C-alpha cells in the first residue's frame, strides 16, 4: 500500500534518514523500531506532512505522494497519532477529536453530531470520559487515549501510531491491541512505532528496524525472537539489561525520612524511609497517588501535613518542601514530561547540564561551567549528538532523557527522584540509564522512582512500595517480588496467600 523509495531527510548537515526503502501491505500492523534518534518519527512525519523529504519518494498505492502539510496528508487518507501530544487544553474532548474536520450543519459547527461521534470513538477504546471535558483537565494517560481515539475516528486507510502507549497502563494497552486488530481486519495499514518489544511481538505482523537513519531490516515478526530484534536495533546483543543488585539486604543509612506525609486534607498519610545506596520504587496503578507523593517530595506539589527530613552523616535536617529548598538540600527531580518540565530545548547540551552545577551558587556569583565533567558525562551516557553545543531540541527523545538525568548526576546531588525514567527510550539507552542509576546508588546516592512499566520497577528496584488509594499497602523486596504479586496488591491491597505482614 505504501512504499518508501530511497527516502532521505536532512536537518542541516545531519542525515536523519538516508536512502530508506521498504514496502508495507494493507491489512497489516507494521512495527517501526530502532534506537532513539534512528529516524522513526522523522519517517512518519514525512508521511504525516510535517516535514517534506529531501530525496527519494513515497508511493501510496503506486502513486508518488508528497504531503506538504498535515492537512494534505489527512486528505490522502493518512491519520497520525503523534509522539508528542497534540491535544489543545482549551478545547473539549469532542472538539479536539474533530478539530480540522469539524462536522458542519447549516454553516455552523454541528456540536450534537460531534459529541455523538466522539462518544462512539471513545467507546471503542473502552473509555467513558465525558466528551465535554476540556482536555486540559485530563490526566496524561487520558489525553493519550483521546489522542488515539482521535486518530482512529477518522475515515482513513493508513494509521500511524508513534509511541502511543508511552503513558498507558496494561489494561489500556490491552484495549489498544483489540483496536489494532479490528483496524487490521478492516484492511487498513497501521504503522506502529514503539520501544516496547512485547507489544511489537504481540500486535504487529511486520517489523522494520531503523538505525542511524538507515534501513536495517523489514521482516515478519513471526520468525523473530527478542534477542534477534534487539541485536538488529542495537547492533549487538545486550548481555545484561538490568544491572546487578548489590548483594545482601539494603542496609545503608537513611537518606530521606518521610514522616506522615499527607497530600490531601483528610486523606491518608504515608511514611517511609529511603536509604543510601538503594533504588526504591513506588508501584501501583495509574492515579493511585504515587505521582503526588514523589511530586510533593520534590516540592512541586504542596503537601498538607507531614515532615520530611534529609540525613547527612549523623545530622537530620527537616526540609521545607519547595523546589528551591529541596534542590539546595541535594534532592534532584526528574519529571516525566521532559519537553515541558525538564529541558531547555533552545539551549545547548552544555548549558542544559551545566545549569545543574550551579544549584548551590547565589545568583550574584560568577558561573563556572565544568566542560570536562560534561564531556566525560556525555561520553559515558553515550549521548548521540554532533557536539556538546548542539541544541537539546534537536536531539531524539532518548538522548534528551539522558541529558535530563545527566544534569542531576553532574550536579552533585545525593537523592534522585524519578518519574518514568525511561519514557520513550530505546532498549540500549534504557540499559545505559539503568546502569547509571545503579552506579549512582552504589556511590552512596539514593533513588526513588515511579514507573508505569512494572517490569522496569521489578528489574531495577531494591525495594518496592505498592501504593493503592494514596496509601502504602505493601513493601516488597525487589529481587523477590513477582509481577503477579505486585499487580494483586495494587488492585486489591491484599496479598494472595500471605498474611498482611508487609502493610
Amino acid at each position, binding site marked *: 500500500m505504501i512504499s518508501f523509495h530511497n527516502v532521505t531527510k536532512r536537518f542541516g548537515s545531519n542525515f536523519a534518514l538516508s536512502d530508506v526503502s521498504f514496502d508495507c501491505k494493507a491489512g497489516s500492523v507494521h512495527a517501526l523500531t530502532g534506537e532513539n534518534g534512528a529516524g522513526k518519527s522523522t519517517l512518519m512525519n514525512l508521511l504525516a506532512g510535517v516535514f517534506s523529504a529531501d530525496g527519494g519518494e513515497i508511493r501510496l498505492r503506486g502513486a508518488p505522494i508528497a504531503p506538504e502539510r498535515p492537512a494534505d496528508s489527512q486528505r490522502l487518507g493518512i491519520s497520525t497519532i503523534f509522539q508528542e501530544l497534540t491535544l489543545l487544553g482549551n478545547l473539549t474532548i469532542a472538539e479536539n477529536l474533530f478539530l480540522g474536520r469539524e462536522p458542519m450543519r447549516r454553516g455552523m459547527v454541528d456540536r450534537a453530531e460531534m459529541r455523538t461521534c466522539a462518544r462512539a470513538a471513545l467507546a471503542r477504546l473502552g473509555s467513558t470520559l465525558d466528551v465535554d471535558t476540556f482536555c486540559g483537565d485530563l490526566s496524561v494517560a487520558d489525553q493519550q487515549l483521546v489522542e488515539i481515539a482521535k486518530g482512529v475516528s477518522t475515515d482513513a486507510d493508513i494509521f500511524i501510531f508513534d509511541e502511543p502507549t508511552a503513558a498507558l497502563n496494561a489494561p489500556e494497552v490491552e484495549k489498544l491491541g483489540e483496536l489494532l486488530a479490528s483496524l487490521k481486519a478492516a484492511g487498513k495499514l497501521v504503522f506502529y512505532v514503539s520501544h516496547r518489544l512485547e507489544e511489537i511481538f504481540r500486535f504487529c505482523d511486520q517489523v522494520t528496524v531503523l538505525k542511524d537513519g538507515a534501513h536495517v531490516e523489514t521482516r515478519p515478526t513471526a520468525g523473530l525472537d527478542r534477542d534477534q530484534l534487539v541485536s538488529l536495533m542495537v547492533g549487538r546483543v545486550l548481555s545484561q539489561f538490568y544491572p546487578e543488585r548489590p548483594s545482601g539486604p539494603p542496609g545503608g543509612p537513611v537518606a530521606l525520612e518521610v514522616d506522615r506525609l499527607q497530600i490531601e486534607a483528610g486523606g491518608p498519610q504515608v511514611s517511609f524511609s529511603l536509604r543510601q545506596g538503594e533504588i526504591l520504587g513506588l508501584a501501583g496503578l495509574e492515579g493511585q497517588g504515587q505521582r503526588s507523593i514523589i511530586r510533593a517530595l520534590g516540592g512541586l506539589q504542596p503537601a498538607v501535613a507531614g515532615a520530611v527530613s534529609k540525613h547527612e552523616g549523623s545530622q537530620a535536617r527537616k526540609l521545607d518542601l519547595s523546589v528551591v529548598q529541596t534542590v539546595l538540600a541535594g534532592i534532584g527531580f526528574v519529571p516525566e514530561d521532559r519537553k515541558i*518540565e525538564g529541558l531547555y530545548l533552545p539551549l545547548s547540551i552544555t548549558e542544559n547540564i551545566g*545549569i545543574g552545577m550551579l544549584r548551590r551558587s547565589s545568583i550574584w556569583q560568577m558561573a563556572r561551567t565544568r566542560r570536562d565533567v560534561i564531556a566525560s558525562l556525555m561520553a559515558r551516557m553515550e549521548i548521540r549528538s554532533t*557536539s556538546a553545543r548542539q541544541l537539546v531540541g534537536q536531539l531524539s527523545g532518548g538522548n534528551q532523557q539522558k541529558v535530563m538525568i545527566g544534569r542531576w548526576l553532574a550536579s552533585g546531588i545525593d537523592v534522585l527522584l524519578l518519574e518514568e525514567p525511561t519514557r520513550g527510550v530505546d532498549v540500549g539507552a534504557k540499559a545505559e540509564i539503568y546502569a547509571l542509576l545503579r552506579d549512582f546508588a552504589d556511590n552512596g546516592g539514593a533513588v526513588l522512582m515511579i514507573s508505569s512499566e512494572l517490569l522496569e520497577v521489578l528489574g531495577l528496584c531494591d525495594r518496592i512500595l505498592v501504593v493503592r488509594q494514596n496509601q502504602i499497602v505493601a513493601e516488597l523486596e525487589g529481587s523477590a517480588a513477582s509481577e503477579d504479586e505486585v499487580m494483586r496488591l495494587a488492585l486489591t491491597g491484599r496479598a494472595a496467600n500471605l498474611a498482611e505482614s508487609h502493610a
Partner: protein
Amino acid sequence: MTDFATSPSTTTGQRLRAAGSAVASLPFAYAATLILLIAAYFMRPALLSPMLLLLIARQAAPLGLAAIGQSLCMRVLSIDLSIGGVIVGVSYILTGGLLPFSDPVLMLIAIAFGVAVGLLNAFFITRLRASSVIVTLAVTLIITGVAVAFSQLRSPGDAPEMLRQVSRLKIGIVPVALLIWLAVLIPIAVFLRMSVFGRYIDAIGANPRAAWVSGIPYVRVVTVVHVMSSLFAVFSGFLLIGFVGVGSMDLGRDLALNSLAAVILGGVTFGSGKGGVLGPTVAALMLTFSFNLLTSLGLGEPAKLMLQGLIIGVAAAAYSIQRKT
C-alpha cells in the same frame, strides 16, 4: 577521555566558516546601522561629523538604558511597558515640589520608587501569574494618572542642578551622559555573561516551567529582572529630566514601545533565552540615528512617521528571515 568541546581538531576552515556564520547571524540592527550610515554619507554627510555622532549617541542614551532593562525582561519572557510610567513618576518626584527634600534625597527617593515599581510588577507577574503586558500597562496607567492628577495642584519645577549638569557636560567632545551609559552598559554586559544570574535568565527564557521544576529560584530571578528594568528606567529618566531641565508629564512617553523595538532589532527574541546587551544598544543608536537622518532630510511629519515605521518593520522582518536560514 578527550574533551571534544576544546579539542584542537577544529581546522582553520571550520573556524572561518564559524566566523562567517556568526557575522551572518548578527542582529539586523548592525546591518541597518551600516545602511543608514551609508545613506547619510550620500544624503547628509554633515551628520557623520564626530561631534554630531557623539551627540546622537548622547541622545540615544535614555533609550539605550531603557532598552537594557527591557531586554532583560524579554529574556525571561516578560515585558516591561511601565518604563514610561516610571519616568513620569521620577519626573514628578524630582520636580513636583511636593516633597520638601534636597535634590540628592529626592534622587534616592526616585530610586526607591523604581525598586517599588519593579517589585510590584514582579509580584503580579510571578506570584499571581498575570500577563506582564497587562500588569505593566496597568502600572503605567496608575503612575501617570496619579502623577498627572497631583501635578495639577502645582506646576512642575526645575530639574536638580546635578542632573542638568550631567546631561550638559562634556569631557573633551564626549558627552558625560554617553560615558554614564557606557559605564552602566559594560559591567552589566560582563555580569550577565559571567554570572549565575545570567545563566538562570537564559534557562528561564528557554523554559520557565523547567526552570521552576529544576529548582532555579524563578521568582527571585524574575523579580530582580523587573527591579533592574525599573531602575534602568529611573536612570533613563534622570538623563531625560536633566536634559529637559524642567519637569514634564510627557517625558519618555514613547520610550516603552521604542525600547521594545530596540530590543527586538537588537537580536533579543522572546523564548530563545538568548540575547546580549550590545545588540539592543546598537539598535538604540540605530533608531536615534534614523530619527536624526529623517529630520535632516527635511521630510514632513507624515513622511517621517511612514519611514520610521518602514525601518522598524523591514529591519525586524529581515532579521527574522536571516535567522531562519
